[in-house]
């Protein structure tokens, strides 16, 4: 298990210990959809297919984290519209997460996560997710973008 720390060397605030079994792949477009911070050194053009996210069920699992207030327009369809580029046209992305043996579909982005010491970010978000199989069971999950932190 490695540690996720703030990507800025002058800060290097410890965010959380990464439990590898809770790391999921989302389409790389998630970084745009959720307006997440890219590490300074990262080449934006490299654009890999997938991005790793650490799924955190309980906010107390974080060692140091800043949590924003509720985001005004947070519905996933709205976010998709906002971040759609001309070349992609009407492509909409769905984000599915396997966590604790269930598949969850992201329906809303509720809050942003930022570094607790230097406030840089967003380095992740809190999402409302719905159980894909039952389509009823709702919960909140914290998604830490591993592309936005050092680990």
């Amino acid at each position: 298990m490695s540690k996720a720390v703030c990507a800025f060397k002058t800060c290097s605030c410890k965010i959380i210990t990464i439990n590898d079994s809770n790391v999921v792949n989302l389409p790389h477009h998630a970084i745009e959809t959720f307006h997440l911070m890219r590490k300074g050194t990262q080449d934006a053009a490299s654009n890999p297919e997938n991005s790793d996210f650490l799924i955190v069920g309980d906010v107390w699992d974080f060692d140091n984290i800043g949590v924003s207030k509720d985001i005004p327009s947070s519905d996933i369809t709205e976010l998709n519209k906002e971040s759609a580029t001309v070349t992609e046209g009407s492509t909409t992305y769905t984000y599915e997460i396997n966590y604790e043996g269930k598949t969850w579909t992201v329906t809303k982005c509720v809050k942003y996560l930022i570094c607790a010491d230097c406030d840089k970010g967003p380095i992740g978000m809190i999402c409302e997710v719905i159980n894909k199989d039952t389509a009823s069971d709702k919960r909140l999950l914290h998604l830490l973008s591993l592309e936005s932190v050092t680990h």
Partner: protein
Amino acid sequence: MSGNNKNYDSIMKILLIGDSGVGKSCLLVRFVEDKFSPSFITTIGIDFKIKTVDINGKKVKLQLWDTAGQERFRTITTAYYRGAMGIILVYDVTDERTFTNVNQWFKTVSDHANDDAQLLLVGNKSDMDTRVVSYEQGESLAKELGLPFIEASAKDDTNVNDIFFTLAKLIQEKIDNNKMSDGGAQDSNVNIKSGNDTGSKSNCC
């Protein structure tokens, strides 16, 4: 399952209280605008922060809350105080009115917060040349109210972290002396420790 394996010894809910403009938010958030601190975050505002400190070898997690402007309307709800184990009363050393109002805030806090909540008086913006409230005045008021006292400048991080560390240490000492039960905090803030149903936690404000 994340809920079963807690990686801390204690958790503490801590509130920042005081007149608007005294810099409570600055103690919590640095509003530095650059490309990595996008303005949309500062516009949305910060709900709370979690910070982990080491107190005598114990891993203590602090949840820090700001009133976010509610104080302007004196509408800080009882819910905000619920479960708070520490309360930081903040005034601005460059604004006498905010210092005078500490008495009022002290009374409000005494009415609403748990009796065993640990209070701390903080004189903020101590780096400013335009100071009108002296260190001695702050110290003397603290003595009168029976509170520990610190002067701070949000520009100086060490100092800000000192505030949280000092308060956490005082609370931990209370817990260790059984003056403040962990159970009490749990009663009033049930979701935090109860484990697996994380659904409502981040909504609790």
